[in-house]
């Protein structure tokens, strides 16, 4: 035996009680390497300069804000401003984090990236960054999700990525993460796992938040510039919670600004078919982190359900759990039905087709607007665009084969019975 004295064991990456590193020992060195690399990068002018240049010349940052008065007329006449992450290259906020992690991958001397994806947005963003930077790329996607997001599968393959359809378990996002972690533990020598949300083992929740923080930094200045004051509430959808952490973080110290996360209510809480973790779950460990988790009495993960593949996840980022338990942020949910009503409303009133994920935030804004009334100023993160969701929307609203009319505000001459597809 040598005289090596074990160092005291730290517990890094905690948000109150939540967070941590519940992963096999084999991954710990890679997590520590990543933690060190990102800490150095965040204070390295060369790295931050390159990331800023990419965001300006490739992502399209800063993303604009858009005021939506015709939509707001259905939301208690509150003043509503959208942060347009949907206009980013690749169609969502996901690119913010992915470009930064791809740059880190190169700095760590790795040549291959892997990622999980639910809706496909993070997979497309990762495939894009891999193409841009010459990295090999494998995307894990639940088989159910490859079917409901077939267009994004094609996009990833066009970009040169290999897409693996994961058939095990519920064949959705959580199972894609399992397979990505299995790949990572096998190939960690040359591979970086570009985790797409603010969950997983430390340093991912903190790092991914920091790479999305630009959303809130820009939006806060833009709203102040436009209106001369801070919003009464900042509203975002929460699956894993990356777009929400991104827009919330800059506002955390603004005590007068309410932070409101909107989870996926699926078929309703009573149906048991939802992803409203904060409405009906308890703390537990999944995918390396301690947070709120949909689980049974034994601790087995329960399947979540949502019309939105991107929100269909049984756990949530640990910092959200902390913000919730400390009362700094509040969480509500929108059912599939409420989200799709908001989806349609934004299309018809403002000519903006949101991602179904983001439509949950819009549904939340309709509710909050009605509660607060015309004096309220709401900032909503429009985290992605809905092009990828046209198949789901067409089925929901009966837009295919002209055999049904859209619900609610439908006004489509010829939509019924003339055999023309509305797509």
């Amino acid at each position, binding site marked *: *035996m*040598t005289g*090596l*004295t*074990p*160092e005291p*064991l*730290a*517990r890094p990456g905690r948000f109150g009680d939540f967070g*941590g*590193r*519940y*992963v*096999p*020992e*084999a*991954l*710990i*060195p*890679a997590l520590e390497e990543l933690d060190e690399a990102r800490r150095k990068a965040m204070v390295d002018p060369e790295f931050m300069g390159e990331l800023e240049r990419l965001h300006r010349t490739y992502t399209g940052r800063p993303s604009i804000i858009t005021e939506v008065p015709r939509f707001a007329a259905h939301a208690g006449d509150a003043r509503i401003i959208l942060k347009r992450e949907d206009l980013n290259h690749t169609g969502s906020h996901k690119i913010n984090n992915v470009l930064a992690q791809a740059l880190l991958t190169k700095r760590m001397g790795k040549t291959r990236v892997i990622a999980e994806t639910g809706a496909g947005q993070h997979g497309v963003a990762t495939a894009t960054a891999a193409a841009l930077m010459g990295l090999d790329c494998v995307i894990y996607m639940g088989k159910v999700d490859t079917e409901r997001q077939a267009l994004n599968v094609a996009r990833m393959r066009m970009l040169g990525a290999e897409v693996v359809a994961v058939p*095990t*378990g519920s064949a959705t996002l*959580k*199972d894609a993460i*399992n397979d990505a*972690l*299995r790949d990572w*533990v*096998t*190939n*960690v*020598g040359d591979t970086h796992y570009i985790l797409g949300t603010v969950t997983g083992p430390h340093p991912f929740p903190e790092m991914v938040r920091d790479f999305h923080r630009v959303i809130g930094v820009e939006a806060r200045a833009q709203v102040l510039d436009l209106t001369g004051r801070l919003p009464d509430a900042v509203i975002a959808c929460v699956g894993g919670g990356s777009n929400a952490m991104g827009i919330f973080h800059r506002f955390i110290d603004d005590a007068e600004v309410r932070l409101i996360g909107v989870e996926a209510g699926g078929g309703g809480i009573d149906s048991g078919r939802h992803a409203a973790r904060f409405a009906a779950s308890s703390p*537990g*460990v*999944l*995918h*390396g982190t301690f947070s709120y*988790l949909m*689980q049974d*009495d*034994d*601790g*087995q*993960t329960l399947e979540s359900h949502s019309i939105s593949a991107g929100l269909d996840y049984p756990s949530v980022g640990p910092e959200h759990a902390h913000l919730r338990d400390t009362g700094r942020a509040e969480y509500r949910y929108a059912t599939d039905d409420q989200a799709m009503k908001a989806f349609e409303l934004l299309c018809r009133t403002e000519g903006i087709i949101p991602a179904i994920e983001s439509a949950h935030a819009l549904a939340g804004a309709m509710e909050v607007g009605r509660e607060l009334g015309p004096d309220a100023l709401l900032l909503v993160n429009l985290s992605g665009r809905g092009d990828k969701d046209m198949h789901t929307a067409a089925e929901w609203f009966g837009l295919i084969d002209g055999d049904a009319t859209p619900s609610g505000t439908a006004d489509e001459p010829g939509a019924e019975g003339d055999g023309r597809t509305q797509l």
Partner: protein
Amino acid sequence: MSATTTGIGVSDVLARCREENRAALVGYLPVGFPSVEGSIEAMVAMVESGVDIVEVGIPYSDPLMDGPVIAYAADQALKRGVRVNDAFAATRAVRDAGAPPLVMSYWNLILRHGPTAFAHDLAAAGGAGIITPDLIPDEGGEWIAASDETGLDRVFLVAPSSTEQRIAAVTAQCRGFVYAVSHMGVTGARTSMGDAAAVIVNRTKAVTDKPVCVGLGVSGGAQAAEVAAYADGVIVGSALVRCLTEADDLAGGIATLRALVAELAEGARSGR
């Protein structure tokens, strides 16, 4: 500081194997496959056929350390209604058959049960300790306290990627043995063990005199002999589970299992 051995753990068995100049054979099966009763029958058969220590696996919905064979058996067991508490019945049966049972469980199942309550329930069922594939000692304060209170062994993992500092920190918290992962990857039989396993064992032995057992990839007698040359124990999982998943019925599966255990036990002897 905690004791390095306790009466109920696996240390006596490992010491006896050392005296007999052979490696211990550690065999893994998940409770609940093909049924709770069937899995217990198979675990007892392993003991009768030459396994020194039984790993009682608890099926988990998201087994990210496991390859296809164990993941399939766990998934089937869950679909057939296996519960965490079934592990205690299996533990009792293994102890009664004469081998110390170590539970192998992903952390959330123990967390949900309550680490202290789990430790007491396991000790009451004759359990020897717990192997925690996704709990590093850094995060294991509650379990370390509960295992000290009950005298249960706690087996943490080291891997080829572990730094010297990590190996020292992890082995300092192990009791019973140190689980050395033979290669970077998930569970599953391999045709060759490669050099990585010997390297990680030697690196571990450089910082601890606790027994070191090697797991991941061992599928037959020749590999068991290879590992027995440098490790205190040979851990076999997927190859044993496959005896049951590929069998037409339980009796046939157990017959295949007995033959494989005998071959592995012979390997664990002949390697020295």
